[in-house]
């Protein structure tokens, strides 16, 4: 009985250890595909930011035209 419990504990332990090793490597795992995803997201984010800026300028212009 004790043997089984110990075995399970050890199994969990080793899995923990493995998980800890791989944790920092998430972006390096699976052929580093996450790096590609992060980069696409950054570019999308940049373009969205520019869109919002344009939107703001258009709103301001609309307001100015209304005031005239």
């Amino acid at each position, binding site marked *: 009985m004790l043997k089984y419990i110990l075995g399970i504990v050890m199994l969990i332990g080793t899995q923990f250890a493995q998980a800890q090793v791989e944790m920092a490597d998430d972006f390096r795992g699976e052929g580093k595909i996450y790096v590609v995803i*992060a980069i696409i997201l950054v*570019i999308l984010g940049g373009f969205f930011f520019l869109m919002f800026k344009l939107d703001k300028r258009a709103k301001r212009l609309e307001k100015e035209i209304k005031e005239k």
Partner: protein
Amino acid sequence: MGYLLKTDWWKWLCVALLSYTVIGGLFLPVPELPILNETIRVLHFHVPMWFGMILLFLGSVIHAIKYLRTGDNKSDIYSVQLANMGIAFGLLGIMTGMIWANYTWGEPWSNDPKQNASAISLLIYLAYFVLRSSIQDQQQRNRISAVFNIFAFFLMIPLLFILPRMSDSLHPGNGGNPGFNAYDLDSNLRKVFYFAVIGWTLLGYWMTTIAIRLSLVKQKLEDA
């Protein structure tokens, strides 16, 4: 619906090319190289930012020359907005490059000549905007900033060519690094890469035209 059909053809081209870039860039098989792994696909997203930046700056310079020849305010607006978008492309290129370098070269900034050259060209165009804000008289501002734009752009070109040759670049394909260069760019990569460059640049140009139209409307409003 009618508008969507009647609008400029190149806007549809941009939509098509970018859709193709995302699909083809993520699904087509790529060469299997150590260290790079799947990040080789970044070629279709990070590298076009640099090409786009240079092309947008080139557009900005062409309009600056036009301004000096004609003195037309419109050219000045074109020049400024193109430079603005070029800076945005450059910043995106630097940011994505730093993310990529962190997982392949091991650190975000490794004194790579291409990184340095791009940082310097961004500095030049940021200085351009500082210069513009420090001159009050409008006509003088337009003319002096156009002069600086041309002067700096033509000095940036030798920089882009000299700096990478002075020392080995860490970039893939340079100095014995695994990867691709102009001669052995893999045919599958090539199938997407050129279209990606055109697509991203068109997207930048598209957004610039909107900014230009807003500026023109604003100017009309001020003149009226």
